[in-house]
């Protein structure tokens, strides 16, 4: 009998070089994901890592697990299909704020309420980076540095964790790319928590939002014991400044999974057609 040595962070990284800018928060999220995978100690082939389109959605190709880089906004739908078809797999989903909350906003709401057992990381930088700097659903209304909305959007931003709570997500957390070990811990907790786990990671875009370099001054850890009641979590999040990190809600709804039990043969099914 051979004893398999535990996998390392390097084992979970691919040899594909990220397209991300130097200093982008997504590098740290990639590190956090690989650290989490080491911690989870799941065989590589049992992990499916799904994404949509955007800078951050490139992440599956940089890992060494099964992955699917789909179309813009539909990562959660692909991921639900994977998990519902193959309950034995560990399903991770990642993408940006535009992918998940704008074009994919409807799927986000339904993924929260459907509560399929998977873990979704939104790498939130409040900007569309791949298309060179447009406002996203999390951008402040008075951000005027986009040619597309030179006077700002004038539209209130989405608060992803509040949205997730309202829609029924079973585990909600926030991390900061500047603290990859904390993000890794949140991912591990999210994977272990049954049902749909949502983790917002504040991941600075140093190219189009250089002011986000200052986020490290703003983030602060939340309370140790996360609320288990929606009302309590709601109350706390109502006055949250958007920079509280840690687990913000840990519910106990059972995960959704259709039961599979063979109770009939094809011949039984076909009997109904015989006249």
């Amino acid at each position, binding site marked *: 009998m051979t004893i398999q040595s535990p996998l390392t962070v390097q084992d979970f990284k691919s040899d594909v070089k990220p397209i991300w800018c130097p200093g982008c928060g997504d590098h740290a999220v990639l590190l956090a994901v690989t650290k989490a995978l080491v911690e989870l100690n799941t065989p590589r082939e049992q992990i499916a890592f799904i994404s949509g389109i955007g800078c951050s959605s490139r992440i599956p190709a940089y890992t060494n697990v099964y*992955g699917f880089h789909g179309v813009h906004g539909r990562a959660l739908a692909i991921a639900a*299909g994977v998990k519902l*078809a193959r309950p*034995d797999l560990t399903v991770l989903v990642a993408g940006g704020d535009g992918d998940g909350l704008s074009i994919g906003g409807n*799927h986000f709401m339904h993924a929260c309420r459907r509560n399929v057992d998977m873990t979704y990381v939104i790498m939130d930088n409040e900007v569309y980076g791949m298309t060179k700097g447009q406002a996203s659903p999390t951008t402040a209304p008075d951000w005027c540095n986009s040619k597309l909305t030179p006077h700002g959007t004038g539209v209130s931003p989405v608060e992803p964790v509040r949205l997730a709570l309202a829609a029924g997500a079973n585990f909600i957390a926030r991390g900061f790319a500047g603290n990859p070990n904390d993000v890794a811990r949140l991912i591990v907790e999210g994977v272990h928590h049954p049902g749909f786990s949502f983790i917002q990671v504040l991941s600075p875009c140093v190219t189009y939002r250089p002011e986000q370099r200052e986020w490290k001054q703003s983030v602060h850890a939340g309370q140790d014991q996360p609320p288990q009641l929606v009302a309590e979590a709601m109350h706390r999040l109502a006055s949250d400044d958007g920079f509280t990190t840690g687990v913000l809600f840990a519910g106990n709804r059972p995960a959704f999974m259709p039961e599979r039990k063979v109770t009939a043969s094809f011949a039984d099914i076909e009997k109904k057609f015989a006249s």
Partner: protein
Amino acid sequence: MSYSISVALTGSGGAGAMTAGQILLDSAAQAGFYGLMTRSMGPQIRGGEAAALVRISSVPISSLDDHYDLLVPFDWGNINRFSAELPLSSSSLILADPEQGDVPPSIAGYGARVAALPLKALAGAIPGGRANMVGLGAVATLIGLPIASVIAVLTKQLARKGEEVLAASTACLEAGAQAAAGLPSVTKLPSQPHGEALRWNISGNEAAGLGALRGGIKFVAAYPITPATEVLEWLAPALEKTGGALVQAEDELASINMVIGGSFAGLPSLTATSGPGLSLMTESIGLAVASETPLVVIDVMRGGPSTGIPTKSEQSDLNIAVYGLHGDAPHVVVAPNSATDCLFATQWSVHLAEALQTPAIVLSDQAMGQSRVVIDKPAENGFVAQRLVPEADAPGYQRYALTNSGVSPMAIPGMAGNNYVADGLEHNERGTPSSQASDHLAQLDKRAGKLDAFDYGEHWADIEGDGEIAVITWGSVTGPVREAIGRARAKGIKAKMISLRLILPTRPAQMQEALKGVKKVLVVEQSHSQQFHKFLRGHYDLPGDVLVVSRPGPLPIRPAEIETRLAAWK
């Protein structure tokens, strides 16, 4: 006596026209006949006008006839909305209940015979009696369908409702039968059809569901849409009982992507929709092309564009099914040519999608999807999902490796050592994103080549008959074409039918072979802009004179229209 008779039963919601039609069809099956029932419904959720259009035959049929031998309106409510769908001839008979008023001009204009039958009064004399059962008794007697067969069906169907309900219905049937004795005669069914063979009663949508199941579909994501919902509603319990799973998605964008996920994870996967849903799915069908993810999308076509005519049929999604994907995106499009063929076409599509690692679109339509047919039990065809997979830990595994067939082994999550990232970005053989011209060309060649090189056997088209005239058609319009060619043959006009089942990829060599010696081509389809004709022109060489019969839905194309064209060409 004719080999078939056609009956139209109409009425407002609650009049029981659909129920009577269903029982009539079941009774015909019980008596050993074949049959076809289509329905014409208004858009109302409940209580709208409805017509059950039943054709009973001593031979298998897949087409409506030119006119109805018998029209039984339980009332005249909203009849003008679909009187164009109820063609009658001078020998047709209308059983009109005097209590419901005069025959409306839109029906009287056909010049059919009219006989008075007090349906409501007769039913009223029987406690718990219903006019539709009186009408059914009269119809059965007039067309020569044994009342015993109708009673046998009722006994089975009303078993749970108790003796009283059955007795009332039987009394109504008998009252109708007695009343019919004094009525003018109509065409009668042949006394005895084919022996005692087992008949099936199935709708096209159910047949598509069964084809999916037999083909090996294990995962379905569903979003309801008329007229495809029955495919999904049939599959939901069938999958649950046989170890598969169906999940309702939030929209068609989700359902197609869930199916992509299910298939990527290793299960043969399918969704069903109609035109508006197919429009929403096209981007992700392109993703399945690029990522070489097998899946099946059933499109049950309805009148378009936009919301169009959701409850009625048209062959106008051909263009979007063939050309709707952006980029060069070769995929499979298969069209069943009858309600019965929905089974084979769907099952074959599952096989093709899995073997070729490609999306396959099944182009059904409302006319066949929501038709019920009485047929011989369909034979097993043996087409099942078989996906080429690599060995575990395949050395140097490359998901998109260039192979002779163009099909590369597809690793499934759980297989150690073969993990890869599927991608809608253009990629190299390994799957790593690449924008290099050489990788793009190699992968485009691969994806097109694998479809082209495959042997589709004889199933690419149904070819029948011979002659210098060829009728090229597809989909549910094949039924009337087949019937018209049969009639023409009996009159000495020889024509060949080529009904395309495999729309994509095209089969130019096979078509050229099929068109050898053909001097005239008649194209028959149901679209306003001649989508099929233009498709043929774009991909095939059509010899000699070409004539097109093409008009939009919802009026079905009838055999006589095609027969007339053939006769004119003799």
